[in-house]
């Protein structure tokens, strides 16, 4: 009984969301607002248990790592965000967290540039490796901002655009299956978990 009720609640909200496809309506509005509220409400105890307790409360109050009072106070400065006069204080915790960006310079250089360059420099063995190389070079030229896409250069860049379009088209076509699967999953939930289980429950 409990499970049937739970499933019906879930089914109700599923249908509420689906109803948006028809048009915006009070059911969708209700579900949407509840979804927004509940999802945030869910995050609060989760943050408390998984973050506040082990990272702030326990180290400071139980293990007496008092130096952590500073970051805790720093974090508390966030509450001044909406105060016009003191809102500059809330910049401190943000600034402290931004420090990691410094690692981003060499790290992105490595993963985003150097590793990709190595991949692009492999020996040309057949027509396919050649085509990949041409594609990489022309797309790189597309992202060259100092020269307008005109004349012969424009034609080369056009090749790059073609490559990208082929790639995008492929990604699009490739994703369809996964998305349809999700819908099938929802339909299965509605039919099997909700309708069939209810019939079985009241039937037996």
């Amino acid at each position, binding site marked *: 009984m409990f499970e049937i009720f739970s499933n019906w609640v879930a089914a109700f909200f599923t249908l509420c969301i689906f109803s948006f496809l028809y048009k915006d309506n009070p059911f969708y509005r209700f579900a949407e607002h509840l979804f927004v509220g509940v999802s*945030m409400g869910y995050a609060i105890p989760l943050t408390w248990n998984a973050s506040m307790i082990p990272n702030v409360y326990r180290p400071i109050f139980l293990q007496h790592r008092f130096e952590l009072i500073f970051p805790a106070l720093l974090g508390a400065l966030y509450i001044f965000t909406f105060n016009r006069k003191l809102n500059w204080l809330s910049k401190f915790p943000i600034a402290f967290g931004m420090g990691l960006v410094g690692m981003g310079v060499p790290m992105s250089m490595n993963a985003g540039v150097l590793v990709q360059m190595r991949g692009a420099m492999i*020996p040309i063995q057949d027509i396919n490796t050649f085509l990949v190389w041409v594609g990489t070079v022309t797309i790189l030229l597309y992202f060259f901002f100092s020269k307008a896409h005109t004349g012969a250069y424009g034609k080369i860049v056009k090749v790059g655009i073609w490559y990208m379009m082929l790639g995008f088209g492929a990604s699009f076509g490739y994703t369809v299956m996964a998305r349809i699967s999700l819908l099938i999953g929802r339909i299965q939930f509605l039919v099997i978990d909700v309708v069939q289980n209810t019939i079985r429950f009241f039937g037996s």
Partner: protein
Amino acid sequence: MAIKKLKTTSKMLVFLLILILCVSQLFGGARAHRIDDDSLKVRNLQVLDLSDDDGSGVRIQWEPLPFEARVISYRVYRGVSPDSLFYIGELPVNPRIGVTTPTMSFYDRNFNIFTNIASPGRLRRERGQPNDSPLFRALPRDVNIIGPMLNQYTILGVIPKDNFYFKTTHVEHEDRVFAGIKPNQLTLAKKLIPGNTYYYSVVAVNERRVFFPPAEPVAGIPIDNAPEAPRYLNGVLISDNTSETDIRDANLQFEWDVPVYWDDIRFFVIHAVSPEREAEYAAWKSEMTSWQNDYEEWIAGLVPNANLPIGSEEKKQYITERTQEFHTAHREIVSRLPATRIWRFTLPQPFTPPTYASIPIVDNQIIGTQERDTWSNHTFDYTFTEPISAYKFVLSYMDYVNLSSFSDLHEIRVMNNSSIPVMDEITIRDQKNDRGDYLELLWGKPFARITSVTYLNESRTNLQMSYEYSTNDNYKIRNIFFEISDDNGRVLATVNEFFQDELFKVKGLPEGTGDLNVRMWFRTNHGEDREHHLTQRLVFDEGILTLRPQQLFFHGFNIDDFNFQIHKRTSFYNSFRMSTRIPLFSRQTNDFINYEVNISKAVANYSAERGLFLVDPNIDLVWDEEARLHVQVPMFTDEVPKILEAIQKSIDEQQELYDNAETEEERNTAQSRIDFFTTRLETMETILQNNEYVHQVNNISNQRTRARAIRRIRENERRYFTYQMFLSDGKGLFTLKDITIDDYGKPIFMIPHSNWFHTQRIPMLVASLIFGLMVAIFVKLARQGKDLYIRPIAGIEEIDNAIGRATEMGRPILFCPGLSGIGDVATLAGLAILGRVAKKAAEYDTKILVPNRDNIVLPIAQEIVREAHYEAGRPDSFDKNNVFFVSGEQFAYVAGVNGVMVREKTATNFYMGMFFAESLIMTETGNATGAIQIAGTDAVTQIPFFITTCDYTLIGEELYAASAYMARQPLQLGTLKAQDYYKFLILIFLVFGTLFSTFQVTAIIDMFPSR
């Protein structure tokens, strides 16, 4: 109208109220009255002793409730008396499926967590239990509650090392000095004590979290059993003699399995059984088995036996006495063992047990060893009177209470030395570029193998082969050669892999070629070596319709038959333990040598008034080679002189016993103890005088400085390792080699070093520095007023028009700054564009809505929009509620944004930043409402959806360029220009790098990292 609105509101509120009521009714309603139905107690709860273990384990077994009870979890409670039981763990169940087995079990064995920092602060009765219930929540971190229990369990305190060094206090308790530590500063692990009585109960909790009534507490008594009988013993006699009867110089080798419970195994013993005693052994073994059965039966009946009250002193005594009887009987049987021990290993705790033995044989004899250094590994004198291969062998384990178990009889194989590959020279060195926790081991020359084959055409003349290879830093592979031949030995193709992409193609094989043979060799930085080659067969497989690679052979050895084990030991311990097992195919490995994290100490005392657990304040500092013992030093400065005093005191005590002794026996015991302590006193005196580390530490008077010195010396000493390498087929055919010994055969100990510079990251550094330099130059140029041209970017040009359109239609603009946080570059780029858009919108007096997903992006976006309004001179039109937080959950955010689009009828939508799967949901809703949409993202997977559904899309880097393009500030333009010229540099490298690598010059490509 007003009435209608009121109606909707009230309708909705009523609905919400009903929902909440339903939920709380379903949960709370049931909670209000606790269920007192005995049918909801778990049935047939039993606490059973675990066989084969060290007496610290029990199994709690019960019958699960029927499916209809919809149980979500079974919670287990334990205590030392039936009136107070504490939660120790649970078995979760899926109530939609239930439990399909007739019984459920929960194990309480070995060391597991007693209390830790996550334990509750104070004692609380379990949820929903009446005041007389024996059930409590988990044990609290409270010395006053835990303290009295310390003697009911074996308790180990795991103390983070700095807590031990710096947060312990000097406590004198019952005439002894202890280091006192607060319960929050350590984790306690417990083990049950054999023979003690423990009580358990189980409570079922249903899917609404209603606690069903607890089962009546059931007692259990863990008993120390004999170890599990060894399952295998693989023996090999390695001998180069041809005659079987005359074995002059040979080696008897064994390998076996590690048993499941080895914690309390003390001795591993191998016995030889001569042919004529085989039958005798079989009879003896069955006698042993029947003893074993009797013992197990007695243990099983221990708790139900109602003659004596459970938990009483009488019962305890009864158990001790009966156990002794059984042990005596066991010892008597063992003493009649019809086999002779030839080898024994003493396992020093806490090491992993040995899995092999190697016994040298000279002239059909085993010569016993008594050397001090090999105290953990003994052989015993034994003469074989028959051919050794006729003998059978037995492996036995003996635990700390002298209970043994024996394997069946096992035969041995006779082989010679050439049956095993020769072990390569091994180099050990510090691993570079790490924080100092790895040593690197390298050996041999490169290996390669074919992993899969695919036909490229119908006529099967073209093939694609995948391969893998392994090498080490001593041998840098330049080329791998694959020579492919058919079964007639005809060479069909030779492939030269100068760039190792683990894939090559073979074209133009003769039609109808069947199975193939591949020979592989290498050219390395040491030149080409055709002698070092591997062979592999590729056999056609009907099922997969292609060639299947067979096993790999190296000089006649099947590589897959053998593996390496790496054994290591510190200077702190005498015996080697296994570190890793790796296949023969690998040519390099690294060994993890951690920095000490925790210090473990037995916890047996507590100080109630000070709220502290008390542990031994002495700690192992170094291994003293001369005295051959671990030198311990006290943590506290003023305790140093007391060590000698304590020993002296022990001597005095024994002297007193000696003087008052009544029997000869007592006198002898006392005398031997006096001798022991006297030697100890002398050794300690020498150490205190001679050991430089001890000197160093004891000369420090400041407590903290002393602790730091101890930490430094101890950690350093413990991280020195020496290695042995072991090559084996897993069945007794093995060779063993000390890797790190000096010319005199003494072990060399190695320690990994912490490095100051990451040499592999030099390309990264150089590339970053060049870029930084370029940015500096172009920013300077831009500041000097040099005109820097930037080509028009379609999407950016259209932003103004799109804002204009919204103004014309009198509808708001929507701006999504992406779904990721402020640390994401895409979000920053999006926010920069937001500044421009908001300013334009403010100038036109058009409302701009900014829904946010990230907590921290929200205030920043708010501020940006506010400032934009100020800059545009319209501070009055700014409404902070237009920049709002929707939800941190991805799809809740989308639901919210969809609602905004539909209800506010936004005319222009911007999506600038990081997006995930939800992108299409938003853009299609935007399309449905007829909005103009401009997107920009660096998420490659989402660009296709934006391109198809938005009017303009900024692809990847264009998003970053956009803010510079719009701002037209020298700083921003300068960096954009630098990026452009850097791209030019990349292009040059791509052209030349590819050109060179195609013509077999891999110098340029090798400059770049592969990951």
